[in-house]
């Protein structure tokens, strides 16, 4: 294409056009036609063309800028297509970009010419630079030309397995574009979506879920396996992706979990109203406990709620709203309250954000008043608010009104009624009316207040008051003769039809209460009948009829007069009504049986109108959606399904460890590694096709390992050599991905100094806190204990000596993994705890290290309720504890697993191990080798990656190698034992390569051991995480040099 472009610019514009014609005979005639049509523009465009053909970049750039200006203004620049398109291969980035802009705008109109540019993109798709690949894919997929659908499909497929997550992100975007261009491709696209959903990069997650929502929102089955991953990744996804994922997960959860409201739905609601918002934590816990007795929340359901909660602190209003609606639709009613504070915060934002948020609060406040009651004052109206905001606030205030706050509210409403914004004043009067009907205590006060308003000077206010009073009187069938009389007097002054009609209706309805006035009113209105509004006329007829029936002596003639007037009225309705009434009330020979019941018909007891919120109807829409805002189904709205009666099999979501099961088996007297007696979800595992090969090796006595480990890496240190053979499609993509630096909000340790400082602070903190503890003796002991251990860990460096230290305390000498002491039985009052790193992918999240803790009861009594208490973790670190153990038999031991996200640092995780009677402070500090996840890659990839991680990112040392260590098997065994590394096949005998990525951030760690002459070796570690690199180097050195 570059060649083509060159030849174009050598030839003139005409030549280019000819060439284009050759390539595209169909559009050829249209181009000259366009010239004819826009002859006035021709001259101007002519010089643009010349500029585009000039050899100078600056002239081309100028021309392109002007063209983009034209596009921006909405002017047609399509006839320049041939001249522009040949610059697509320009070396100048800005020209190129502007050409892209132009292409995306006009390619659809000039499809055949657009094809000329395709080869350029195809070539760029193979560019070594990921950003160029990404942008090529972006533009290629934005060209809406149906002919290139196969090319796009191919490009998307290739890009979806690209090394760079940024390219994969763009592939996810391209899916939607291709789908809208050619829906036929759906099946193929779903395959790509399925593949990308498995992606672990935070960059991709948001985009692929967006594609999922657009292409196949009903394929909920694709989500199962990725559900937990999405939940854990959520915090680190960019904000726009978060919104999309949260909305999708809301829908998902409604189909997969049982309702957390069901059993004590009513109770909870009531409790909510009664208890104030500020209930103490204990109360909350107690309540939770109560709920739990009848209903146990699926751990996955809880996971979602827990992982979305921090997002309430997002600066992005859309994210906050998304979390709020998730809690509204998914959380137990007692927990939904936490969102209100954040929603109220959004009210400080721009008017548009306020508008949407207020609408949603309005809907929420109808159902659960308690949520927003503490924030009542935040909804007070300011005179500077736009009218739409004012009315929404008013709506919420009305919803929140109750006996306790009504007096304050009414005082506030009084100010609003006087507002200069009359539309708002009228809305306030309606609000007062609603409060009056809802809260019986204040009905009378409200009514008298409204009556006062009847003397207001503003007609709209008076009219609105009349209408509201009418409704109120109807709901209050007691004596209100005085008010009616007062209103009858007003009739002379009020001109607003609705109000006049309301008064007439009232007088008619209660004519027996005002027997003297009613006929007089009829007399007056009969006089003005012809000038009244239709609405009023109907009510005059109505009044006449009612009076005729109750007081025919006085009003017979008057009524007939009115009926005669009505008979010749212009309006159909009036004439109809007149005829109807006449037949019904005036007895004549033709009148049927009905006239006997005329009185019953006209003066029947009428049900009072229900004054309720206009937002009531909206609650069947999912909150935060466009449909909710509009109160009508928007195109593409996906209904939120009702909770299922019975939850679908939760095992569907199982990807990794079956340890998610809550049951742990106690092994009496056995100090071997504990393990769950049975694979809880073994069935689903076997369903996974990948597991076929591994099922054979699955041994009964084996640890908790499931197939995932076997694929991913050595589950045991000793099996290190086998790790080189494991290779699967999955791990391949894994290793590719590991080139990527994951987006991560959490702690990034860039400097070892930094770490030390932090660590120091933390130790200090731990010490102070433990000394303040009540049981200072035991806790102090344990903290010093752990300290000495941590010293050992950092000083003695080698994994081997680590084992030596721990072996003396454990009984499991022959277990291949090294165990560390967590709690000595002396300091633990008989409870001993050891831990080891199982090097398995952790069920609690991708970036967590799984730690197996073996608890042993050395006393002769049961130890009850073992659980994790207060956690004192360094920032960023997260810990997933084990489920509380109800009791541990004497001499019994149990192994539980925990997940700790160490944030790629060797800082200590301190927490309390509690029994029913005691709590002990304990620490876990990981050797750096356990913070890694082995990856496999080809030697070529390794070298490539290594090339990118030089300079600062490289640490190396020359070490003396003991002679017995110089064989490759031994080296591999020792290195793999010391750190969780994957072996990279090496072409040379004297060079050994290992690769891994850090658990938390997924940064690559590359280790090279190169044997030199005279039993020395060069040890090189390349990683972005320089701290990890240097610590790892320190730990590996002695491993090889020791005998």
């Amino acid at each position, binding site marked *: 294409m570059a060649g083509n472009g060159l030849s174009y610019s050598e030839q003139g514009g005409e030549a280019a056009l000819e060439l284009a014609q050759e390539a595209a005979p169909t559009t050829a005639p249209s181009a000259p036609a366009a010239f004819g049509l826009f002859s006035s523009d021709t001259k101007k465009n002519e010089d643009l063309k010349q500029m585009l053909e000039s050899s*100078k970049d600056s002239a081309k*750039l100028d021309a392109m*800028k002007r063209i983009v200006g034209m596009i*921006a*203004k*909405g002017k047609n620049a399509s006839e320049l297509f041939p001249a522009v398109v040949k610059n697509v291969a320009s070396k100048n*980035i800005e020209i190129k*970009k502007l050409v892209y802009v132009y292409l995306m705008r006009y390619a659809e109109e000039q499809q055949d010419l657009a094809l000329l540019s395709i080869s350029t993109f195809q070539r760029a798709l193979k560019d070594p630079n990921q*950003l160029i690949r990404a942008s090529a894919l972006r533009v290629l997929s*934005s060209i809406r030309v149906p002919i290139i659908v196969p090319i796009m499909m191919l490009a998307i497929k290739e890009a979806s397995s690209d090394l760079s997550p*940024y390219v994969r992100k763009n592939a996810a975007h391209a899916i*939607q574009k291709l789908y*809208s261009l050619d829906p036929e491709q759906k099946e193929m696209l779903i395959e790509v979506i399925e593949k990308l959903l498995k992606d672990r990069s935070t*960059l991709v997650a948001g985009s692929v879920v967006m594609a999922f929502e657009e292409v196949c929102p009903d394929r909920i089955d694709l989500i199962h396996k990725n559900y937990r991953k999405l939940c854990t990744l959520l915090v680190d996804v960019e*904000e*726009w992706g978060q919104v999309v994922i949260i*909305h999708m997960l809301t829908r998902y959860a409604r189909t997969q979990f049982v309702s957390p409201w069901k059993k004590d739905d009513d109770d909870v609601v009531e409790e909510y109203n009664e208890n104030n918002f500020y209930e103490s934590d204990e109360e909350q816990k107690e309540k939770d406990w109560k709920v739990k007795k009848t209903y146990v929340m699926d751990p996955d359901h809880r996971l979602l709620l827990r992982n979305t909660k*921090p997002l309430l*602190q997002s600066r*992005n*209003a*859309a994210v906050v709203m*998304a979390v709020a609606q998730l809690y509204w639709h998914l959380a137990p009613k007692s927990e939904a309250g936490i969102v209100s504070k954040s929603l*109220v*915060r959004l009210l400080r934002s*721009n*008017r*548009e*954000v306020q*508008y*949407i948020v207020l609408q949603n609060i309005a809907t929420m406040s109808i159902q659960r008043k308690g949520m927003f009651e503490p924030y009542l004052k935040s909804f007070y109206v*300011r*005179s500077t608010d*736009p009218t739409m905001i004012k009315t929404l606030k008013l709506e919420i205030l009305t919803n929140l009104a109750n006996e306790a706050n009504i007096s304050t509210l009414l005082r*506030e409403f009084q100010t609003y009624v*006087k*507002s*200069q914004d009359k539309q708002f004043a009228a809305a306030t009067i309606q609000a007062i009316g609603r409060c009056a009907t809802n809260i019986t205590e204040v009905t009378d006060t409200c009514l008298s207040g409204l009556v006062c308003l009847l003397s207001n*000077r503003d007609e709209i206010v008076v009219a609105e008051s009349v209408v509201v009073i009418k409704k109120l009187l109807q709901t209050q069938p007691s004596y209100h003769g005085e008010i009616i009389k007062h209103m009858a007097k007003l009739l002379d002054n009020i001109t607003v039809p609705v109000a006049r009609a309301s008064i007439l209706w009232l007088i008619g309805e209660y004519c027996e209460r005002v027997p003297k006035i009613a006929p007089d009113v009829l007399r007056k209105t009969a006089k003005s009948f012809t000038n009244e509004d239709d609405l009023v006329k109907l009510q005059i007829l109505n009044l006449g009829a009612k009076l005729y029936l109750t007081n025919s002596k006085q009003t017979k003639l008057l009524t007939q007069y009115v009926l005669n007037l009505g008979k010749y009225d212009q309006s159909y309705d009036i004439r109809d009504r007149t005829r109807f009434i006449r037949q019904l009330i005036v007895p004549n020979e033709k009148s049927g049986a009905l006239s006997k019941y005329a009185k019953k018909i006209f003066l029947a007891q009428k049900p009072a109108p229900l004054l309720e919120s206009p937002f009531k109807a909206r609650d069947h829409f999912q909150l*935060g*959606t*466009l449909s909710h*805002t509009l109160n009508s189904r*928007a195109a593409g709205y996906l209904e939120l399904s009702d909770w299922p009666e019975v939850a679908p099999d939760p095992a569907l979501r199982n990807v990794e460890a079956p340890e998610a099961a809550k049951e742990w088996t106690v092994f009496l007297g056995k100090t071997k590694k504990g393990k769950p007696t049975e694979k809880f979800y073994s069935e689903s595992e076997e369903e996974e096709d990948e597991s076929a090969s591994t099922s054979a090796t699955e041994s009964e006595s084996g640890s908790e390992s499931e197939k995932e480990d076997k694929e991913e890496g050595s589950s045991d240190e000793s099996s290190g050599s086998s790790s080189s053979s494991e290779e699967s499609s999955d791990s391949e993509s894994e290793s590719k991905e590991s080139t*990527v*630096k994951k*987006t*991560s909000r959490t702690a*990034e340790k*860039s*400097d070892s*100094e*930094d770490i030390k*400082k932090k660590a120091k602070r933390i130790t200090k903190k731990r010490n102070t806190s433990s000394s303040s503890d009540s049981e200072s003796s035991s806790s102090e002991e344990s903290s010093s204990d752990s300290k000495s251990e941590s010293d050992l860990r950092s000083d003695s460096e080698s994994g081997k000596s680590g084992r030596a230290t721990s072996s003396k305390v454990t009984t499991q000498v022959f277990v291949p993994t090294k165990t560390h002491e967590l709690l000595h039985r002396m300091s633990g009052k008989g409870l001993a705890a050891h831990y080891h790193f199982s090097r398995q992918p952790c069920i609690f999240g991708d970036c967590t290290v799984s730690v197996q803790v073996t608890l042993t009861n050395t006393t002769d009594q049961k130890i009850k309720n073992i659980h994790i208490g207060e956690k004192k*973790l360094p*920032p*960023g*670190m*997260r810990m997933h504890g084990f489920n509380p153990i109800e009791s541990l038999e004497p001499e019994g031991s149990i192994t539980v697993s925990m997940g700790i996200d160490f944030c790629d640092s060797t800082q200590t995780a301190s927490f309390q191990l509690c029994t029913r009677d005691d709590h002990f402070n304990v620490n876990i500090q990981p050797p750096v080798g356990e913070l890694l996840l082995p990856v496999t890659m080809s030697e070529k990839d390794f070298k490539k990656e290594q090339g990118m991680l030089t300079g600062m990112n490289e640490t190396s040392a020359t070490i003396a190698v003991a002679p017995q260590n110089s064989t490759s098997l031994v080296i591999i065994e020792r290195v793999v034992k010391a750190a969780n590394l994957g072996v990279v096949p090496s072409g040379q005998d004297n060079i050994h390569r290992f690769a891994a990525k850090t658990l938390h*951030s997924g940064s690559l760690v590359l280790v090279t051991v190169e044997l030199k002459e005279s039993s020395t070796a060069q040890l090189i570690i390349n990683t972005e995480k320089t701290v990890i690199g240097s610590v790892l180097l320190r730990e590996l050195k002695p491993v090889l040099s020791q005998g």
Partner: protein
Amino acid sequence: MIHSLFLINASGDIFLEKHWKSVVSRSVCDYFFEAQERASEAENVPPVIPTPHHYLLSVYRHKIFFVAVIQTEVPPLFVIEFLHRVVDTFQDYFGVCSEVMIKDNVVVVYEVLEEMLDNGFPLATESNILKELIKPPTILRTVVNTITGSTNVGDQLPTGQLSVVPWRRTGVKYTNNEAYFDVIEEIDAIIDKSGSTITAEIQGVIDACVKLTGMPDLTLSFMNPRLLDDVSFHPCVRFKRWESERILSFIPPDGNFRLLSYHVSAQNLVAIPVYVKHNISFRDGSSLGRFEITVGPKQTMGKTIEGVMVASQMPKGVLNMSLTPSQGTHIFDPVTKLLSWDVGKINPQKLPSLKGTMSLQAGASKPDENPTINLQFKIQQLAISGLKVNRLDMYGEKYKPFKGIKYMTKAGKFQVRT
């Protein structure tokens, strides 16, 4: 998601359009104009307008309507928040966001919009990354560009999108390393006729201007973090650390950004630093009304109140006002009936006042509501909630940065009912 964007100025001209999917004809905006006509004022135009085939979501800022066209269900806040982000980006790029500025820089605007959305889904919205992709125009660069023919588009591809800290560009270098933090608190209050507080809240933000070389890792701690009731963070802040230690720990973006916004809990009594004495009265039958207001300090912690502005929307019946201020200048616009008085500093020895008469429409009845008074003021060197930054530390880089922290209290929506 977002199909197209139209920019519409105050006089109803569409001066820019951008499409991310297929082209939507600009005639769709007719529905918007219709709604605009129905709403008397610009700010009453509903943010969401349904049309037969599309939905128009708009924001109104800087006298420009940003109208997004969408076709299918999407969370409305998603679009609105994005549009605001677009406006913020323009402001960041050009200093001001006005029609003239946008027209002058149409190519940059177009390129920025192109990068911000892909197929209607946000792609790059962090200003640090955008600035790496497309350099903002500066006078110097414009001159250089015209001479050398170079361009605004970054000639190196940005890596920010791929890095661990997507909000910070790489390779930042400064000769003077500085980090400034402004703690700005706004008091929202409604004051009763009698001078008692109906509702008062403090909303604060910490705006930062950080110009530091390399990849600094900052921590900011407060003397009294308990004051902060509800907070929202820039994505750079490590949430976990805040949860556990109440410390703000972050790798800052380069340049200006809002680190934190917070809300001081309503339980704390809010000190109201000013009071307004007012006497506004209309008499029935008389065409003259009395007008008198005095502004004075109250609970200012010994600081001066500056930049005081008083604004009040007078009732329609007021024809004109003849007033004399004891200091400052005042304007009454007889058309909009808006009275504004630029007071300046409050001198506690001699309180500023504005006295005079209002002339009312002859024969008209007296307005039933007295106007509310909106107050603006500033107090330097004071955070009214008492929030204090304890210390700011930097890790990860070797140099010693210059650090500065400034406090300020402002009136937010401060209203006095009369």
